[in-house]
């Protein structure tokens, strides 16, 4: 098989998706970021320092775990979990925060800003800034501040300033708007540590590079445990950083089915979900051309998901490309099904997943009964559920 040319191309496109749709003020900073990334990320000193931090600070490699009781309960294929929930700070977000944090340091920028939805990227960024001695400001939608209060407390404890964003829908979309406005204003002194596989070029490329450690570890780990490649890899998708991080190692293996799971929310009506690949149209938001949940006049729609980290109306451009080419398939899981999967995993395996990751577990649980017992489904368990305990407890108490 001939490998296609490496994507993104020099202008940051994956097919028709990606690019750099930003105000002129940010162009020089994005060029500088791209140059710093290309110069350093493979340089021996940088790579060695990142590898050392991933091992001794973040706790990598994270294990792959064979969920035997869950697989037995479902009666069919074997579920394996890539345990990103065991990484320091409780999610895959630390991988990218460490990589970009080191880039911030080599760039000489002392002030770091970040956006966060569920708070996991904000916590990871605040953590890395504390460890590297950088100032940290995190923008978070007021709605997310309310439902992820524990993560706000964690960021404060780590010395970060958390700015509650009250404009628009008061979720991740609006946090990114405010972070971009901050960056436009303070671009000469500030590093924007972007957390999702979206945004203007080169962010989708940088985030993928720093998240691909997930798949790079999982592939040989799984081969040791079951002698080969998985039949399917399942990950939750919103911006899509954990999904691209695990998909990347399997993209050139046509026998491995790649499945992204979006937030089906309350249902398919506009504003009730965040299933962009299912319901979106081509659009431009936050610096890249991708698919976008929008009305017929091009205004961005509100979203809903029980998982704050899946509550964004866009998706990373590489996922739009994988969707269009058919290399990956994308499905939706609604709030109730995600919550049921969270309880099933907790009660069969003793693992409380993040609500976001529970969407991936839910789809794997749909697939397993129809799979042969020899088939292997690898699920990226991208985060742990500690941050969601209030939401989970409310559902359990309500008898949901």
């Amino acid at each position, binding site marked *: 098989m001939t490998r296609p040319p490496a994507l993104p191309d020099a202008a940051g496109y994956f097919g028709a998706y990606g690019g750099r749709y930003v*105000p002129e003020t940010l162009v020089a900073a994005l060029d500088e970021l791209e140059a710093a990334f290309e110069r350093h990320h493979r340089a021996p000193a940088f790579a060695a320092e990142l590898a050392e931090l991933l091992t001794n600070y973040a706790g990598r490699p994270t294990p792959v775990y064979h969920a035997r009781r869950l697989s037995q309960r479902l009666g069919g294929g074997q579920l394996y979990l890539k345990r990103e929930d065991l990484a320091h700070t409780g999610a895959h977000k630390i991988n990218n925060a460490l990589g970009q944090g080191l880039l911030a340091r080599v760039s000489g920028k002392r002030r770091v800003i970040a956006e966060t939805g569920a708070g996991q990227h904000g916590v990871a960024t605040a953590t890395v800034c504390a460890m590297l001695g950088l100032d940290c400001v995190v923008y978070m939608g007021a709605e997310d501040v309310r439902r992820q209060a524990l993560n706000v407390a964690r960021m404060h404890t780590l010395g970060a300033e958390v700015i509650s964003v009250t404009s628009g829908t008061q979720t991740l979309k609006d946090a990114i708007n405010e972070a971009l406005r901050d960056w436009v204003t303070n671009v000469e002194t500030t590093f924007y540590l972007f957390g999702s596989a979206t945004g203007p070029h080169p962010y989708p490329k940088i985030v993928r590079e720093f998240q691909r450690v997930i798949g790079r570890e999982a592939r040989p780990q799984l081969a040791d445990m079951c002698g080969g490649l998985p039949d399917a890899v399942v990950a939750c998708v919103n911006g899509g950083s954990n999904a691209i991080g695990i998909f990347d190692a399997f993209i050139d293996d046509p026998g491995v089915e790649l499945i992204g799971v979006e937030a089906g929310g309350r249902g398919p009506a506009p504003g009730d979900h965040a299933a962009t690949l299912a319901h979106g149209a081509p659009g*431009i938001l936050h610096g890249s051309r991708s698919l976008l949940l929008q009305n017929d006049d091009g*205004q961005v729609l509100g979203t809903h998901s029980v998982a704050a980290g899946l509550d964004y109306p866009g998706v990373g451009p590489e996922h739009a490309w994988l969707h269009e080419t058919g290399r990956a398939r994308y499905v939706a899981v609604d709030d109730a099904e995600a919550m049921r999967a969270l309880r099933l995993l907790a009660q069969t395996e003793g693992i409380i997943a993040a609500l976001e990751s529970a969407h991936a577990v839910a789809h794997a649980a749909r697939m397993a009964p129809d799979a042969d017992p020899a088939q292997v489904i690898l699920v990226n368990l991208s985060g742990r559920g500690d941050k969601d305990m209030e939401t989970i407890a409310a559902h359990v108490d309500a008898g949901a």
Partner: protein
Amino acid sequence: MNRIDAAFAAAADARRLVLAPYTTVGFPTLAASLELALAYVDAGADMLEIGMPFSDPIADGPTVQAASQIALDGGVRLDDALSLIAQIRARTEIPLLLMGYANPFMRRGFGALVREAADAGADGLIVPDVLPEHAGGLEALGAELDLHVIRFAAPTTPTERLARIGEGARGFVYCVSVTGVTGSRPELAASLPAYLKRVGRAVRAPRMVGFGISTPEHLRRLRGLAEGAIVASALIDIVRANGARRGAAAAANHVRKLAAAR
């Protein structure tokens, strides 16, 4: 000749700046945005920038964000922006520019949008999140219909890039006055004169300064440093402070003072 080019030629002959007030379509209401635009024309505006609101205006500060939200809550659509331009065009020959973020224009289709804007009587298009490297098709369509697609410069733009921006610039180069978002500011940036001189050395097109330009004193200080100025948030703030009934007259009065200082 495109009306934008004619306006700069006339201003150069009269040794004054081109003054372009901005108004958001549908702010405070659709009908009132027409009244505002016409009041600005009567008060001495040389050019108007007509802003299509967007749900996620990342280059805008709180004032334009609020005006956009009010307009969108009122149900404003892109068709309203085009028909507002047509109604203004029926009453004046000054240049009109349609401003908006990329997504609503892309949703319409850039080709359709350029044609409809030209048909409505617009002379230019301002899209702050489409860089020249992504605007090739848009600029070519605009050139066919004599609709200038405006390019931006910012204080952070390197000089070599400024020269490339200048090479294909039509109408004027929109010089963002500060590293920051839109919004009224009491003082011009201390670095503004040096920056505008740097743009002037690299770019032949007229320099239109925007972001933070608020007062007659600002305009007086821009004379000799630029060829024109765009005033947006300061006028929106006046409309909001004076309420629906007196807002238009108060904002037009400010435009009159700005025009006297240009």
